[in-house]
């Protein structure tokens, strides 16, 4: 298995109306934190964007630091009075959110 290509998280952004969606593909782990942060910081600063969605359909693995990054994002979104959705979590992401009790904190659909 070529770990170099399999461990990288690919991040891309789509915007529709007032919603910015950050699509994550691959392994969502600590290595991705800088790129993940810069992906959402620009959207938080944009007054036209009121909703942030994180598309987790392509997440093949996530660890506790990924949960940590989502918690940090949640704080920042609340500070800007915007809304946050975790959308289409992959099976493994959904299971991790379930174990971590994230449905109490996040809008997941």
């Amino acid at each position: 298995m070529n770990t170099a290509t399999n461990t990288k998280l690919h991040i891309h952004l789509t915007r529709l109306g007032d919603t910015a969606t950050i699509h994550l593909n691959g392994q969502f782990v600590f290595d991705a934190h800088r790129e993940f942060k810069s992906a959402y910081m620009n959207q938080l600063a944009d007054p036209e964007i009121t909703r942030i969605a994180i598309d987790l359909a392509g997440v093949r693995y996530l660890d506790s630091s990924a949960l940590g990054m989502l918690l940090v994002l949640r704080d920042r979104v609340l500070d800007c009075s915007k809304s946050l959705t975790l959308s289409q979590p992959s099976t493994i992401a959904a299971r991790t959110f379930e174990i971590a009790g994230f449905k109490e904190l996040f809008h997941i659909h």
Partner: protein
Amino acid sequence: MKILLALTDATDLDMVRAVLLAEGHDPCTAHDGQAVLTAMQEKPDMVIMDAELTGISGYECCRQIKHNDKNKHKPVVLLMPTQGTTAWARFSDCGADDFIELPLLPHIIKAKVKLLLHISELYHRLDASHRHAEQEIRLAKHMFDSITKRQPQEVDFLHFWGLSAGHFCGDLFIFERTPEHHLHVFLGDFTGHGLAAAMGALPVSDIFFAMTRNGEPLEEIIAAINHKLYDIMPTGKFCAAVFMRLEADYSRLEFWNGGLPPILLVDRQHKIAGNFESAHLPLGIVDPAEFALATGSVELSGIHSVVLCSDGLIEAQNAVGECYGEERLAQALTRNSKDSCPFNRVKSSALHFLEGLEPHDDVSLAVININ
């Protein structure tokens, strides 16, 4: 910078020396290969020498210089005389950092020296920061080991196995008896490894031991630890944990699972008789005022053992990228085997699965045998 020069051609030597002096360096010279090796004791910052030195050749000098670990990042430059393929093969085998082709030109000497000293400086900085990080890891390991060594006694029916993803396993497993002899058990998995885990483990274990020895109920202890971690940890850092209280007569188990894989009960027929999923957020995330405390409770009649693990076990990957998974864990627990202890069965199943690979997250497994 002190730069050692070994050049056979006197005109070249004068030119290079003049260039280095003009750049503010401190050139010194050696007339042959043996003299170069002797002059290394003076610890030059860089070496520039002819590849074809008399006596010991430049290639061989370079090999011997690089053989010493202290010179690993010290730039060694060979002046290459020919375009023969043998010379280049010898060059690439000897471990030199760079070459300059003859005839020598002053601006090339100047540029190469500047570049190589810059790279060497970066290596030294990286080395220093690496050493610093290792010191911190040693400190963290020391603190973490001290915490687990504070365990007052061994409990013979309680087994723990930790396999670290790095220098040491950052999952915290501690237990203590209340004055009434109930057994309190804690398994915690902190975000991150190393120092981050050790920093969190300190207050958790302080509160856990003190309150248990005071005979305080499990819910109070969980609330106090969540409160402390909520106060001190930044957003995004938390601790997935299980708390358990085993009654002194082993009749009943009280439990709380916030973010760890299910607590499993295995009965005497090797069947899974209970599965208690995480029902709470991990410690340190929510405000104490909104924190859900309610513990669960179960009778233990007919139960052989209680099994806890961190997600590092469930998510451990083998060489082909498969996860160990909850199913393999359940199979190992329920499989008919000569070994009647579920702890041994799971441990050997996980080790067999990993085939010597280091897990990417700390793996921990705790089993309490009820007898």
